[in-house]
């Protein structure tokens, strides 16, 4: 086994050895007659308690589902209303981000290089683990249609789909934004190279399959339509979605 494979196998082993023990608390404010929202707390490697936003459409299911991997920044928004109408959604807050920041609070700038001196201590090893834990949670949800599960985010989404078969579609808006803070080529980031994380899901990646026009409403429509078609639902433009 290569060092690369060993590295990620060890993460899988650590996750497998720790029960996730998810707790889902109903959130009335984010629930409507169309979907029900929960705040979820679950255990990832460390052990560390991470957070996720879960939303489940009304009805009997099974439903198509989407995992959102976290952005680079202290805050991830709750999944958009349009997505909660169509999918079971789960949005992971990795360790250090808001709602998963006890006891560890990530600094911005700074998180991108935390522990980067050694691949074994690099914070992104744990961040990927947190995404994988989120994937396991969503893929294991009773109401998820296993043939229609997608993952979206930056390249963390592709890495997640590579390491957790079960996703039909993986959509990336491009390289990890954290890498813009990294100077030189420390060994630790080699383990995040998407080229070394092939996945069996169908993929759509900005910069590879699509060049942004920078008209972000138009770009969003293209990205939304791709995932909606893959998962068998209708596209929805955010701008068209107004409270009735």
């Amino acid at each position, binding site marked *: 086994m290569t060092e690369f494979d060993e590295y990620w196998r060890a993460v899988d082993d650590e996750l497998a050895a720790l029960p996730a023990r998810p707790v889902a608390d109903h959130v009335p404010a984010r629930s409507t007659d169309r979907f029900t929202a929960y705040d979820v707390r679950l255990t990832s490697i460390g052990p560390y308690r991470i957070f996720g936003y879960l939303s489940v459409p009304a009805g009997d299911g099974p439903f198509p589902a989407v995992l959102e991997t976290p952005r680079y920044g202290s805050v991830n928004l*709750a999944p958009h209303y349009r997505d909660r109408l169509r999918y079971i959604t789960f949005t992971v807050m990795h360790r250090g981000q808001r709602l998963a920041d006890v006891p560890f609070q990530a600094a911005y700038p700074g998180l991108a290089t935390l522990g980067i001196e050694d691949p074994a201590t690099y914070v992104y090893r744990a961040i990927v683990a947190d995404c994988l834990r989120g994937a396991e949670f969503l893929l294991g949800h009773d109401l998820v249609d296993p043939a229609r599960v997608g993952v979206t985010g930056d390249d963390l989404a592709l890495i997640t789909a590579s390491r957790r078969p079960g996703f039909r579609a993986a959509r990336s808006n491009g390289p990890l934004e954290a890498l813009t803070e990294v100077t030189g080529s420390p060994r630790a980031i080699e383990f995040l190279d998407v080229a070394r994380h092939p996945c069996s899901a169908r993929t759509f990646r900005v910069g590879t399959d699509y060049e942004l026009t*920078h008209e972000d409403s138009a770009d969003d429509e293209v990205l939304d339509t791709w995932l909606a078609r893959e998962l068998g639902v209708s596209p929805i433009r955010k701008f068209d979605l107004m409270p009735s």
Partner: protein
Amino acid sequence: MRDPENAVITVPLPEDFDSFWAETLKSVPELDTSLTYVERLSTDEVAVYDVRYTSYENVRVAAWYATPRTGGPFPGLVNIPGYISEPLPPVQWARRGYAALAVAPRGKLRSNSHFNPGYPGLLTHNIVDHHTYGYRGFYVDVVRALDVLAERTEVDSSRVGLQGSSQGGGLGIVTAALRPDAVSCFAAGAPYLCGIWDSAKLTHSYPYEEINEYVRVHPGHSELIRQSVAYYDGMNFAPKVKAPAFVYIGLEDDVCPPETGFAVYKALNGPKEMHTYPRSAHQAGLHWVMPKVADFLDKHLVHGGSR
């Protein structure tokens, strides 16, 4: 079909709007600024400092301050952050010749030890009561950034501008209105916090969706919220603005509806220019507009000299 340019956005003007803000600003303690040089964020050309100052209700507020290493006096620039973003050291603006202060108002990571409503949370923190609404101190934190720059001998206080998008755009309007004599010009992208109550009726996107969620749980609070946010609405600040304004919006912005961008632009009282971007959402033409923003600021703050 929406017609953003001609939409009517109405915000009630509280009778005591002016006295509310005058008293709020009068109540702040001494700045008690501290400035710590940060080697790891500085470059050969730019010195970066970690700044802390005291604001409304004695909350200590953080900012990054960046200046060119040589020359001066420099024009000053306040960078105002978006809703979920953390301010970065404004090194690029310093490279351009500005003494730039990127403020982290209360609740941001470096300013949240005494006030931390979280995200989501800030927009609706005590939203039924304008006296204790979370944005009260937050607004003051941004206004006081001007006082921090005014203390700096390397800053030409007759040439100070504001720059930001979204929350940074909305608060640019607020700050220019509350300190008409201290602001030479400002650039405001996709302004948030303008037509606040109407915005929540026009979108399901965050942050305004926080209001829809709040009302879902407290349906009887709508009128209280409408009255309360009027004290904080850019529409009520815009007529008091005198400084030249550069405004830009996306015509399909789901986050800050373009209806409100047009409305607040019309309400601005100083010299102004508007740039609109079709097929664009909350980035509001970012890819094309930032060079124009920089040229606008340079024209008024670098080439234009003092007011």
